[in-house]
């Protein structure tokens, strides 16, 4: 009821003409016109492309960074435990707090530019939230960075499940660390990498908070992704049906990733 009814209404709204004037009245049925309009709108297609880029960045940072963090924290040590606790804390921070903090850090006079200038890496501040593709990449980086602890925690659990005897046998056979990682670790945790990748992509496609807080989708539309576009269309421009159509497309994109995940979970259960 709490999932089905809102979804039903959302889909109904996406195939109707709903404005503030018709919201409280009967919604005229318009079929797929809202979807056709969207795909004919260059702003929407550009937004889809940005969402794809956003997803790839989150995926790369989440998987590679998460795996690196998990491997680093795999060995039991005091520093490792403290670091582990810190990244869990980072993960638990509300996105608004993380987003605002990162926004200030990425300003022209923020701590990151100050640091890069102090070590003579740059002469002029990098305008992370203004220039070219940097606003989109910066927000995606932050979204990926915040998701990294989740990936690290899951990967760490997977690493703990790899039988230690395999590494001992490989060592006896003369395999180095990189060979052990390639032939033992990666194959053993491959299903986990697959599941984490799917979850990260779903997270990226529906990620709203960081973009909204850090750039508002700007400058211009430079960092607008699907959820932000849908929100602005529905709740700022009051084109409820077009906003609903964007939401339906976003949900379909998330389902695209969620269904293989659900199938893999069911396969494991069997």
């Amino acid at each position, binding site marked *: *009821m709490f999932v*089905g*009814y809102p979804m*039903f209404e959302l889909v109904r709204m996406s195939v109707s003409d709903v*404005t*503030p*004037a018709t*919201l*409280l*009245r009967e919604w005229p049925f318009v079929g797929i016109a809202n979807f056709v309009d969207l795909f004919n709108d260059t702003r929407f297609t550009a937004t889809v492309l940005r969402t794809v880029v956003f997803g790839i960045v989150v995926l790369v940072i989440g998987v590679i960074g998460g795996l690196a963090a998990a491997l680093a924290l795999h060995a039991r040590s005091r520093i490792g435990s403290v670091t582990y606790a810190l990244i869990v804390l980072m993960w638990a921070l509300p996105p608004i707090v993380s987003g605002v903090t990162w926004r200030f850090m990425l*300003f*022209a*006079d923020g701590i990151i530019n100050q640091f890069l200038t102090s070590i003579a890496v740059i002469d002029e*501040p990098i*305008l992370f*939230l*203004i*220039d*070219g593709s940097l606003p989109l990449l910066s927000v995606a980086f932050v979204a990926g960075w915040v998701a990294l602890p989740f990936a690290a925690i899951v990967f760490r659990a997977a690493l703990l499940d790899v039988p230690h005897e395999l590494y001992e046998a490989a060592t006896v056979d003369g395999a180095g660390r990189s060979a052990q990682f390639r032939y033992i670790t990666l194959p053993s945790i491959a299903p986990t990498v697959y599941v984490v990748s799917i979850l990260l992509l779903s997270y990226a496609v529906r990620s709203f908070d960081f973009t909204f807080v850090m*750039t*508002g*989708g*700007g*400058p*211009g*539309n*430079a960092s607008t992704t699907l959820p932000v576009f849908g929100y*602005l269309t529905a*709740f*700022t*421009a*009051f*084109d409820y049906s077009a906003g609903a159509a964007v939401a339906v497309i976003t949900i379909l994109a998330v389902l695209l990733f969620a269904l293989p995940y659900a199938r893999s979970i069911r396969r494991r259960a069997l």
Partner: protein
Amino acid sequence: MTTRSRRKALAAALALPLAVALVACSQSTEAPSDEPLTPDIEATLTIWHYNETAGLQDIDPQIAQFQELYPNVEFEVTFIPEEQFPNRIISAATSQSGPDIMWYNGAFTKTFADAGVIGDITEEWASFEDADLFPESVLQTSGDRIYGVQAYVNLNALYYNQTILDELGVAVPTTLDELEDAMRAATAAGYRGMMLPGAPGVAGEWVSKAFFTGYGVQNFSDYGDPAVEEMFTRVAGWVDEGLVPRATVTLPQAEAVNEFVAGDVAFYVGGNWQLTLPAEGGFDWGVAPMPAGPEGPAVVYLGGQAEALGAFPTNKALAWEFLKQTWLTKEHGTMRLGLGSIPTRADVLEGDVDPNVQAYADAAANGTPLSSDTASTLAVGDLWSGVLAGQTSPADGAAQAAQIAAGAE
């Protein structure tokens, strides 16, 4: 539960909200009570607003004042964040449970009128004895009906750092050419030229209006005019030349003002609600109307809160009485003047007025109501932001502006 009974339960669950909605749609939207107004009338009025500081300045004192006249009237005041306000009030209307009185952003008048969530006060305004004291531009209308009124307005003007201008021997600019020369002089002397806010969306469009109109482009439907590219080329050139720091162009006004207060910026495009802030900078400063463009004076939006009734007041006469006895009075206008607001009631601005407030009042005389075309507003704001940040070239910006003009309401 069998499959059949489960289906029935699901059908009932889906049908119930629909039925409620149909019943709600069929009900009258007339006010349920027309009890005559007597000092001992008993009622509870609800007020919805979106201004966090309104409780102290504008609502609590007004309620106390009203309760001296009507001691048995109670109030329920609800603060709703500005970005949530339109959707909350439209949602509430589905159950006809909106406020009696509301303090809302006037840009949403047509949206609320179309949605049937705001009260029509045309008749009340026609019989209001002080109606002539308010300019027509502050009446919130949709079609030929009046829905709200702005007792005071918010608008943009040009802040200037008098200390810097004195050092440079530069007069306060009245045209964009003079402004450009003054910015060049300021940057040559090591200062920053101007803070020109370019946040995307509504905030950006709010600032851009003065520049479009200075180039003779008044309405969204005119944005296909070749002058738009000239204007974009000019402001983008300011950023490229360093007269407007690129690093700050996406800051909203709430943050850009801090850069001006820092003291090394010659100019800033800001609002009257920020009049108390520059004093913290320790330099001489002032405010002037936005400089005129090559095609005429700069027109600015008359933004800010508007006062109105909900569509479903428990007692419409009492709710209207509240507006008349509080926010629309001369005393209230005088109080707001003291807070840096620009009252719209003509008899408030008579006599000695702070010169900076007077500058805003002069600009307000050349003001225009906020557009109700929210889609175009958003698109133009994004365009302004994109051009300032260098994401969109002036030529592409002009082409996109022409598309906006073609689809403008």
